[in-house]
């Protein structure tokens, strides 16, 4: 049973469309892998190990609990740090958007914090705190808080004033106004904020683990550097990349579900 109707070119069939989409998704990754493999044939293995070696190491990490738990702990640190920063940012963002005093005090403070490099927060955390997990949580929150807060403020201030006035005309309670107007209106920008901060957070957590932790992907990368093991370093890096891609995909699915009401233009 063919999907191709008589008179239709096989290149216009739905099956070919799916194949073409898959090929386009795979194309950039294939290109990176090919470039790496070419380098592996030219340079010695300690600089550019073959992809087979790298994927063997990836497989070992995924199937060995003691190693995979490091990946999970890094993932949990990223999500925990982002969630903590987001909750705090939501409170600060609402305050800044609604109260002039909060705006005057907090906006310059957060702008000042934004100028402090992630590595400085790592050093401060090591000096100030003893517990590893709290240190990492602190670093994650401090490095992502300003961006999250400014995104919340921007989303609240960018709410459609006409729609807001319309909802207010029905005299809602504060909670009802929040659930029927504010939350749906700011949701698109919040998902974008998570997407942007996820990338930042995955970089910061590795630095934090590299310097101040005895576990996680960052710590494992430090081990590989000391062993001068490029295949291992690449395999651990790929774990983090896989996690970011997976979470980005989850966010994209959420976005697709939440915004299915939006009109889609037929012309791209």
């Amino acid at each position, binding site marked *: 049973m063919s999907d191709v109707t008589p008179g239709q070119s096989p290149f216009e069939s739905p099956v070919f469309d799916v194949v073409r989409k898959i090929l386009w998704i795979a194309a950039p990754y294939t290109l990176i892998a090919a470039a790496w493999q070419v380098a592996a044939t030219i340079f010695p293995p300690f600089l550019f190990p073959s992809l087979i070696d790298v994927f063997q190491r990836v497989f070992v990490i995924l199937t060995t609990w003691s190693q995979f738990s490091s990946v999970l702990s890094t993932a949990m640190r990223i999500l925990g740090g982002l969630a903590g920063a987001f909750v705090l940012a939501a409170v600060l963002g609402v305050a800044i958007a609604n109260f002039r005093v909060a705006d005057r005090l907090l906006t310059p403070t957060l702008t000042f914090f934004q100028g402090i490099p992630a590595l400085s927060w790592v050093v401060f955390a090591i000096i100030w705190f003893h517990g590893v997990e709290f240190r990492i949580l602190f670093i994650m929150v401090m490095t992502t808080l300003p961006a999250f807060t400014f995104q919340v403020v921007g989303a609240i201030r960018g709410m459609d004033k*006409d*729609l807001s*006035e*319309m*909802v207010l*005309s*029905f*005299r*809602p*309670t504060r909670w*009802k106004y929040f659930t*029927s*107007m504010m939350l*749906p209106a700011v949701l698109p920008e919040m998902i974008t904020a998570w997407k942007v901060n996820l990338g930042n957070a995955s970089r910061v957590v590795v630095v934090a683990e590299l310097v101040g932790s005895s576990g996680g992907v960052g710590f494992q990368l430090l081990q590989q550097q000391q062993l001068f093991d490029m295949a291992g370093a690449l395999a651990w890096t790929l774990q983090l990349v896989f996690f970011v891609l997976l979470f980005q995909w989850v966010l994209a699915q959420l976005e697709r579900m939440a*915004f299915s*009401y*939006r*009109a889609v233009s037929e012309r791209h």
Partner: protein
Amino acid sequence: MENAMTVETASAPTSTEVEIGFHNVSKRFGSLTAVDNLSLEIEKGQLVALLGKTGCGKSTMFNMIAGLTSPTEGTVEVMGRNPFEHFDWYRGKMAIVFQNDRLLPWRNAVSNVELGLEMLGLSAEERRERAIYWLHKLGLKGHEDDYPHALSGGMRQRVSISRAFATDAELILCDEPFSALDEMTSKRLRTEFARLVRENGKTAVFITHSIQEAFDIADRIVVLKRPAEIAHDLKMSAEFDQADHARLKEMILKSLS
């Protein structure tokens, strides 16, 4: 012309219940006077058109009735209370149809109509039932689950009218609700709107800059000149013919020019 002049009414009713009262109201924005010492009373059950040119202060009057702004001087009373100070008291008692439909894009038609009912704490079943009743009454059967982007301008404004009537509010405020629609759709919708107001015994204040629109729907036309001073207060009658309308139109245009 003589006939037309006899429709001028005193703005203070004597025996009927007053729904909206402006008592020596002025509103200033810095050096700009939007409303100047205005006194006006609107009776319960009236469909009143506030007619005036752009910038004459009719939207300021509208915002004062809706409780969105307060007068600089004088008092505004709606159902015997100050709408600015007792803002929440009007929950379920006042509904607004805006110039543009202002439908929430993330809600389908029926959910948009349910919005006002949610504020009243009705059960989900009752909300749905009422919302569907009003959508069908406004001719939107089969479009209950459509999102705003899938509806035409006229259909969206019908949803917005359904949203206002669904709350069963005593007072309906309309801010040039049909001005963005084509003439045919606008005429059809305003006829329907006026019928619904009368059928359901509502009081309605309708802001417009179109003389024809005011003739088509209103029991009473309050003509405003700048800054929101009453130029004419006209009681309309179904018995007026085209010649009467032409004379009234001429008189209104003359006072607005």
